[in-house]
């Protein structure tokens, strides 16, 4: 099923399906390595709609809560 990044559980992995938002935002995420068809693993999620951290390949990226909402991920549940 497809959920947004904030709904993933810490430790859960999935495949990025879609990133919604402006060109600049999508491009920035992509150039950091976060783009459709990449496997990502959620590392942590901070309290009170705080930033979400994910692992893509060898790097960890922290993404603000609002941004994370616009990243759609396919997970197996």
């Amino acid at each position: 099923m497809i959920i947004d990044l904030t709904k993933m559980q810490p430790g859960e992995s999935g495949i990025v399906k879609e990133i919604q938002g402006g060109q600049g935002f999508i491009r920035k995420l992509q150039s950091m390595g976060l783009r459709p068809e990449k496997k990502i693993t959620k590392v942590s999620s901070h309290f009170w709609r705080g930033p979400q951290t994910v692992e893509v390949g060898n790097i960890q990226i922290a993404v603000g809560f609002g941004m994370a909402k616009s990243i759609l991920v396919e997970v197996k549940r």
Partner: protein
Amino acid sequence: MKIEKILLIGNPNVGKSAIFSRLTGAKVIISNYPGTTVEFTQGKIKLGDETVMIIDVPGTYTLEPTCKAEDVACRMVKEGGLVINIIDATNLERNLHLTLQLLEKGMPLIIALNMWDDTKHRGIYIDVKKLEELLGVPVIPTCGLTGEGIKELIDRLPETKTRDLSASSDNQKWEKIGEILEVAQKLTHRHHTLLERLEDLSIKPLTGLPIALGIIYSSFWVVRFVGENLIRHIFEPLFTKLWLPLLMKLSAFLVEGSFLHHILIGNFIESKIDFGQSFGLLTTGLYVPIAMVLPYIFSFYLILGLLEDLGYLPRLAVLTDNFMHHLGLHGYAIIPFILGLGCKVPGILATRLLEERREKFIATTLMVVGIPCMAQIAMIVGLVGQRGGKYVAIIFFTLFVLLVVKGLILNRILKGVSPEILVEIPPYRIPQIQSVIKKLWMRLSGFLKEALPFVLLGVLFVNILYMLRIIDFFAHIFTPVLTGLWGLPKEAISALVVGFLRKDLAVGMLGPLNLTTKQLVVGSTILAVYFPCIATYIVLIRELGIKDTLKSTAIMIMVALLIGMLLNLIL
């Protein structure tokens, strides 16, 4: 081919500055977090008989700018030159995207495959020959920290090539990179190392927050412990046992009361030289920066350097993100704040990490008013600490509350919202002793070169103003504010005047005034907020522009008037 200019270009935190410093021998600050270099640094390298300019360009993900540091990178690329594209070997895929962009722009390119030493234990095997073949430009494995591969990189600079690639879309580039990696890179599974487990623990909120509190608390404890002991066992004895006897001889030679005696030695306090109060160039002028401030600068930058090189700061940024949003900032603003605790000049420069003008304005204004620099902290601890730790705590607590309240208000009244955090978190790396020491030495000599002359100038300046009775004139004018509003004696004006030059000296000048504890607390707090020192102010104008600097200044003055009055009423 004649080389005119060399640009070091790559993603953030791939080690460009480390390679730059290896190539040029120049001293630059290197840390383990994205955005250490926000301004380009220039150096020179000798190639054969020619000297070529070499530029350390701030890291960028794309050639389409998304923040000021990246904008600098894009402009540099437009101006042209030979590019040493620095690539993080542990993140080939993403790094190659920028490589392809550079190749499509027709830049002559050579690749430094940096952090090569890191690939083995990460289970990454790269076939350098294949990579070179597929990209069509030279690829040299390097390790900026140890210097491995640097000589080969220089030797092969003449082999630099341009490729005639037509522009392709982002997706086409990713496909191409996929094909390249299929052949040139092999990944094997491996177990998590201890360091990686620590990475996870320090980014998860339940374990990360206690770890953060522990690190912050122990950092301050160590800074204080090292600072205090350096003063007690080294600097204080140095001044009283070695320097004082020399000064006594000089004093006898110059004769007390003469003009030179007044300037160099200052006044006798109870017929003795008092380093804190005599106020001559060779007494207070040296004692304040060297014996009172330098030890704390040393211990602060030692700890900061270790945390920077370990890669802890971006994690702290993620953990504080939520709180910072209330102040109209996101978590990454914690990095300029922490640098500002050392000195506000690099602190303000680091606000270039922030994307929007609004954030930059808030961050700099909060920093100037709420975050005292280490020189000032050392003096407050030294001077107010004599009256009891409680009073030091009151000052810092007041400054912290001010910072928060100001942030809350600015976030409310300024138009717009601040963007969210989006940042890469680097892996932990064990700090290398040599590079920590090198960085510490750079920062200490920076302090001595920039602060010492200003302190001496301040001492001279005040002595002259006193002689010309200009201080009396100012004191007369400002008495209503000083005495009426803040409850300070009118002599405190001299500290406020010197505060424009140096904050440490200004706090020190409160010492001889025989203030009550309350007056000392009020005075120290006002000195922290009313105006930044001249060096900071110049950077502020450069970074914010005249108009915003004036706005920021108005806020400072208002805050100073208000907080002085409040403290005077409450305490």
